[in-house]
């Protein structure tokens, strides 16, 4: 009965993104896997193979207690049939239509017990056209959800887009879905190991994509500590990507081992104050006040800073200083920071779809976590596409994994923590996610034992 589950990869992508080309690569590449294919999209030229099943999408609405969800009836039927032929292949690939909503596909693997028992959702692979996806990114909910649900995103046809278009797209996609790995491809050419065998929705991958994924967010991207020996110095900048930038200067207590960390709390509080605008050539007196440096539109800018006492100061900047060639000059000499750090910036909430990662070192109360999550998904499930949490539970040696798609939640006990340090990590991908509210919610679940 404990037979190995068959991995299933779901391939999504808008019409013309290169999905069929990718499918052909997968079917012809010499990767040693025997792949059964379910095709929902079929052009005139069908792939003729015994293990290719072509069917139309059928959406089933289901009532599961108080939870409503939609699943894919065609997949339940066809996968149920393929399970009976499991000796004939190693992997199943589902090619959805360009307009497919990945939600019902993912939910099928949560709801139907036969699917759960025999299959595992290995990964959702989404392919986008590097140039034309912009035409749909804001208007098509399907395209946005295909990106949001993905474990892996191929930005295809990069030969047709400019490097800056590609860079902008990568950063836009990363804001929507920080968990998915991105690959740049041409003619849908990709190493099969990048898209097959992903092992499901997984927080580790989010950290590979962005090592800072689980860190708290800050209103600034950079902070540095400077030893200022004079009462007067200057901040000098060159032209950069923005016409102005917010900064904050704070005096540092010199004894502290890590000055930057010591003033971080104050920095977060003051950085969000109403900022005073300072034009190029303007004067700044003392620290502790959020300032908006307005840059000279043509050429270099400089700001004079007057201090009451020479000492150590921490400078926090909205963007990274090197984007503006920002330097601090005292007595004609460039001052180098004694200590500096990059911070994970706030989401610029221009995308209603985003991903949130959270990490806690305390043990959790299993019952509270399950209650909180099922309640959260019941209320906000429409807006939460995918979630996964791996929890350290008080009094429990094994890791607890909770995984959700929209309103559905599934719990699973994993292996024991072993040599790993106990911690709870969570990731959400969804619409209008409120990071602070999610954080506050999970903090309520910290074990009091």
């Amino acid at each position, binding site marked *: *009965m404990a037979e190995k589950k068959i991995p299933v990869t779901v391939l999504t992508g808008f019409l013309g993104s290169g999905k069929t080309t990718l499918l052909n690569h997968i079917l012809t590449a010499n990767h040693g896997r025997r792949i059964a294919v379910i095709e929902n999209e079929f052009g005139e030229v*069908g792939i003729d193979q*015994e293990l290719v099943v*072509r069917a139309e999408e059928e959406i089933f609405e289901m009532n599961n207690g108080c939870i409503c969800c939609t699943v894919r*009836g065609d997949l*339940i039927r066809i996968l149920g049939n393929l399970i009976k*032929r499991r000796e004939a292949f190693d992997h199943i690939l589902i090619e959805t239509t360009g307009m497919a909503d990945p939600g019902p596909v993912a939910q099928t693997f949560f709801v*139907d*017990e036969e699917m759960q028992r025999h299959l595992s959702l290995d990964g959702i692979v989404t392919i986008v056209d590097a140039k034309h996806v912009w035409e749909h990114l804001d208007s098509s909910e399907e395209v946005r959800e295909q990106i949001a649900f993905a474990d892996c995103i191929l930005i295809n046809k990069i030969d047709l887009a400019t490097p800056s278009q590609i860079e902008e797209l990568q950063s836009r996609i990363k804001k929507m879905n920080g968990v998915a790995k991105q690959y740049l491809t041409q003619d849908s050419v990709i190493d099969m190991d990048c898209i097959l065998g992903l092992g499901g929705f997984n927080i580790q991958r989010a950290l590979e994509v962005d090592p800072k994924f689980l860190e708290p967010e800050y209103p600034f991207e950079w902070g540095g500590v400077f030893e200022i020996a004079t009462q007067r110095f200057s901040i000098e900048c060159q032209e950069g990507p923005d016409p102005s930038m917010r900064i904050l200067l704070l005096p540092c207590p010199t004894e502290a081992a890590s000055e930057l960390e010591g003033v971080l709390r104050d920095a977060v509080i003051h950085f969000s104050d109403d900022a005073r605008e300072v034009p190029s050539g303007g004067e700044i007196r003392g620290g502790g006040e959020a300032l908006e440096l307005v840059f000279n539109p043509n050429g270099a800018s400089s700001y004079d800073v007057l201090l009451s006492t020479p000492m150590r100061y921490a400078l926090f900047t909205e963007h990274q200083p090197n984007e503006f060639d920002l330097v601090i000059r005292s007595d004609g000499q460039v001052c180098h920071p004694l200590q500096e750090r990059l911070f994970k910036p706030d989401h610029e909430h221009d995308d209603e779809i985003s991903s949130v990662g959270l990490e806690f070192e305390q043990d959790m109360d299993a019952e509270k976590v399950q209650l909180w999550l099922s309640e959260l998904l019941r209320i906000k499930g429409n807006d939460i596409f995918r979630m996964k949490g791996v929890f350290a539970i008080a009094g429990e040696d094994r890791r607890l994994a909770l995984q959700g798609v929209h309103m559905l939640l599934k719990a699973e006990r994993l292996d024991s923590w072993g040599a790993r340090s106990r911690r709870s990590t969570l990731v959400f991908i969804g619409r209008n996610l409120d990071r602070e509210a999610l954080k506050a919610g999970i903090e309520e679940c910290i074990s009091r034992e």
Partner: protein
Amino acid sequence: MSDALPFKKLCCEIVSPATDFVSAILSVSEDLFLVGDQSGTISAISCGNGRIAWQRKAHAGGVRALELVKGSKICISGGDDGCIVVTDLSSGEELRRESLRTDPRLSDWVSHLRWSTTENTLAAACGKRLFFLTEELRPIAEPCVHATTIQDLAWDQEGRRVATVCYGGGTIWSPADHTPLSTWHDKVAMLAVSWSPNGKYIACGCQDSSILVWDVKQKQNLRMWGYPGKVTTLAWDRAGRYLATSGQGDLIVWDFSGEGPSGKEPIHRGIHQGVISAIAFNPKGTMLCTTADDGSVLVWRTGSFEPCLYGVAGAGISAAAWSRDGRRIFVGQQDGGVCIFAIDA
């Protein structure tokens, strides 16, 4: 299955296997039963000694349905390839073949075949279409097109009307006029259907861990929830009193005597460790057999529904059928093996 259970062990004989996962099994006569498997092969096996009488690859892909034309010497099979094949029962020779696929882009398969002796008509489901065909596979009428894929079909006891179930509802058809006689709607995917022997009820197993019973005359739905999983198998006893159903490894029997099952607790038996794959009453209706994907076979007494016999097959069971005389149970396994269990009278 523990040996401590207070009922008798069935005698099991593993006979010449089919070639692949058994998808259909059918009793033909005192002498013969048929096995259809995932390789598309039909095997005719002797009830007595378990020898293969003939074996023939009838379909590309698996066999999905097997049916007899009563009083004749042929069997009809449907497969993953969208074809219906007529085979001579004595020789295994292929007599006729028709494809029901009309849209070459779709891989529709022939999922269900049921013969009505009264109408001399074969009801066949392929994708969203229901066909009425003669023994020669000639269409009697245009196919009846459904909104979604047909999940199961059943003739009424008299063999005059066919009930089909889909996601969203069920329909009763007559082969004479291919317009629906009546329909019922419910936003649920019905997976299996069985018409009660008295013709009053149509019982449907549902995806959402429930059953739906359609009262044909009153045109009313009865829903029973609370199953441990989707309901894919159900069967009525010959008298039409008991409806046996399953969800996961549990057998749940509803008593339709008197006022019907409303407000009555069903009989609930959870002995199988695996998921129940087949439910069948013996021809007399005195016993019920259930088989599961862990290889277990149980025989229950109709009425008390206490288990009286048990057995274990060589592998997970995917299909089962009683012999015509009710003295044997033929079981098909997921690994292609076939077992014959003998019931001592």
